[in-house]
């Protein structure tokens, strides 16, 4: 019979009896060491990378690669067909000695300056009219936004027909109220064509501005206006002291969109005034150089120049219109 110390020695040699074998005891939660902050962050980063990778692939394919290839093309004399040669920065150095390009840049800035204020003012006015949500406001909001939905190209073609002297309704209407003759040619003179195109563009774009500002206005607490009324503020004072400051971001967004759109103006000028060289925008000149004269390398350099200009102007707008009261 094995006893005492012998049992201990046997157990030491062969392990405890079956019924007495120790079961592994899971550690208490407070005993499990927590993963370090770095490990958590790395894990989160890996998960995030996986989740954004499809978007990165798409952006890479449709934005980064084409942009990189465009930069490459702009450094060559790329023709429509046939061999091309690397020419370095020659295309860029030619830009400012190209009188048509310089004129196009000047006119584009001029046009942007002409249409941006009316687009904003008309859009703001429409937003003020409709923010009270009176009866019919939704219908009018839709009607005012409709020109933007229809699109500037279709509207330009419509007006190409309706601006025809002697047959279009514009001359007919204006002659009835005594403002113009029934055979007024609108699209062949610089000033008249610019006036008409500006009216069409304001009609087209004001609806979008209205929509952006309306959304911003609806986020302004009603109590602020009530408090201002209690203090005896007039409508104008309420607009200046309550609405405009709190609408800063929406105003910035609408102005940036408007300016970018004006810098990229093409459709309305190509359809309504394509033979009026004094009304040629940068994008029109890019189109002509690339797709009529087949100087694709030079055209690409102009397009990239425009991208940089738009980027700088937009950055300037962001800085000027940023909300400085944020903490």
């Amino acid at each position: 019979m094995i006893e005492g110390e012998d049992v201990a020695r046997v157990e030491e040699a062969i392990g405890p009896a079956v019924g007495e074998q120790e079961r592994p005891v899971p550690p208490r939660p407070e005993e499990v060491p927590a993963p370090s902050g770095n490990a958590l962050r790395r894990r989160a980063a890996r998960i995030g990378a996986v989740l954004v990778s499809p978007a990165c692939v798409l952006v890479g394919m449709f934005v980064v690669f084409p942009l990189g290839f465009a930069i490459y093309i702009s450094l060559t004399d790329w023709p429509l067909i046939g061999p091309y040669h690397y020419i370095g920065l020659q295309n860029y150095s030619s830009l400012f000695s190209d009188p048509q390009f310089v004129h196009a840049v000047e006119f584009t800035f001029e046009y942007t300056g002409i249409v941006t204020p009316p687009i904003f003012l008309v859009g703001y006015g429409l937003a003020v009219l409709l923010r009270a949500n009176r009866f019919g406001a939704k219908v009018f909001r839709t009607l005012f936004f409709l020109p933007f939905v229809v699109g500037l190209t279709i509207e330009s073609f419509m007006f190409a027909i309706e601006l025809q002297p002697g047959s279009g309704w514009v001359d007919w209407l204006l002659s009835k109220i005594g403002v113009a003759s029934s055979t007024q040619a609108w699209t062949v003179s610089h000033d008249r064509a610019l006036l008409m195109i500006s009216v069409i563009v304001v009609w087209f774009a004001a609806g979008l501005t209205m929509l952006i500002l309306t959304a911003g206005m609806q986020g302004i607490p009603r109590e602020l206006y009530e408090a201002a009324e209690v203090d005896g503020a007039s409508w104008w004072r309420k607009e200046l002291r309550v609405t405009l400051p709190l609408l800063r971001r929406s105003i910035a967004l609408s102005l940036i969109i408007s300016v970018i759109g004006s810098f990229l103006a093409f459709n309305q000028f190509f359809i309504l005034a394509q033979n009026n060289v004094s009304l040629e925008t940068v994008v029109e000149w890019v189109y002509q150089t690339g797709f009529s004269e087949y100087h694709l390398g030079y055209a690409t350099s102009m397009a990239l120049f425009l991208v940089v200009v738009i980027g700088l102007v937009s950055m300037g707008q962001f800085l000027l219109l940023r909300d400085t009261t944020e903490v």
Partner: protein
Amino acid sequence: MRRRGIPRLASVVVIAAVASLSYTAAAWSGPAASPFGVNATGTVQFWTRAATSGLGVALVKQFNATHPNLKVVLSETSPNQDTSKLATAIRAHAVPDLVGLNDIDVPQFSREGVLMDLTQYVDALPYKKYLSPGHLGLAQYNGKYYGVPYLGDLSVLWYNKKLFQQAGLDPNKPPATFAQILSDAKAIQKLGGGISGFAMAGNCQGCLGFVMEPSMFAVNDQLIRGPIGHQTIHIVGNKPLEQLLQLYRNLWVAKVDSPGSRTETGPTWGNDFEQGKVGILPGAYGFYPLMVKAGTIKDIGIAPLPGPTGKYSTFDGGDDFVIPAGAKNPSGAWEFVQWMMQKAQQVKYPSLGYTPVRTDVLTPAYRAKNPYNAVALQALAHGSAPVTLIYDAAFNEPNSPWFQMFTQAVYKGDITGAMETGQAGFERVLKEAGD
């Protein structure tokens, strides 16, 4: 005896086996290769311009119905994108088998060597001498043919016979000289009541080139002369051109142009004429279906575009067939092209709004069935089109040198200055094109 019989029998068996194997091998190798463009099989990828697709859509359907082993798959290219789309396909080595290309764009591609040389096949066509000279000229480069005519989109002189009669003019005698155009337009203008003697697309540079240049072709004149690579501009001192600009200036000064003429950019070109408000309209033959639809065709007459003192011509516009180099089924493409150029298909063109490209289809029966198209087809044989790399840049593009010259001459009255401006502008474009 038996042992000698076995080798003989074995020889017979071997020979028979070899013979049958040879026959089988020959049978499995398929039929003998067909000549180029004959009994081709497979598919033909055919690109056509959206502007002229109506003809292709109708006739491709008929071809496919009658050719079980060869199918043409038609794709339309968007307006103003046909050349860039083809260029992209060439760079990507993914070309179609056949393209219906705007004929004025063919030289650009021929020069770069990206089109198949069709010279031997074109020369073998028994009706080659009846093919449109303008189309064929544009398909020719350095003495070789890189295309053949596909469809004609010609310019003609439309006139309103009813207004002619009301103005005391002979409705069966359309103007045949510049002087007659001016005098007839003035006579019709006197009718008043919103009637105009003349109409033009005065803000459409391409339209103006299309209807004005034939007056110079009629007297064998061209603004751009010489072979590609050695071309010169002939504007200053060009008498027919000066007479042509003077005609349009005289029409403008006499105020016989319709109200929409100054601003017309093309979308509504001919509308006022179709409504019976204009006496004379140089325009496209393609207006014909619209006038038939409007119900005014019975009052309309057609004539070729006259030269300064007589003769006539037309702008051989339209498309050429080209086969890109590297096409997968050029034989199938050429078979389809030959089918399209058969008389049986050519006589169907007028009903689809186009003019055939073979003048030998102009028979008395054709003339009786298609009296209007017969006039255009007759002019085709005397037609032309500038063979140059700079046509788009010099004529068609916004504010082109051609349009600047027209504007300065006609609207501002400075014909001499305009021709100098034109000469300089054309030369600049030629230089930029590397010619």
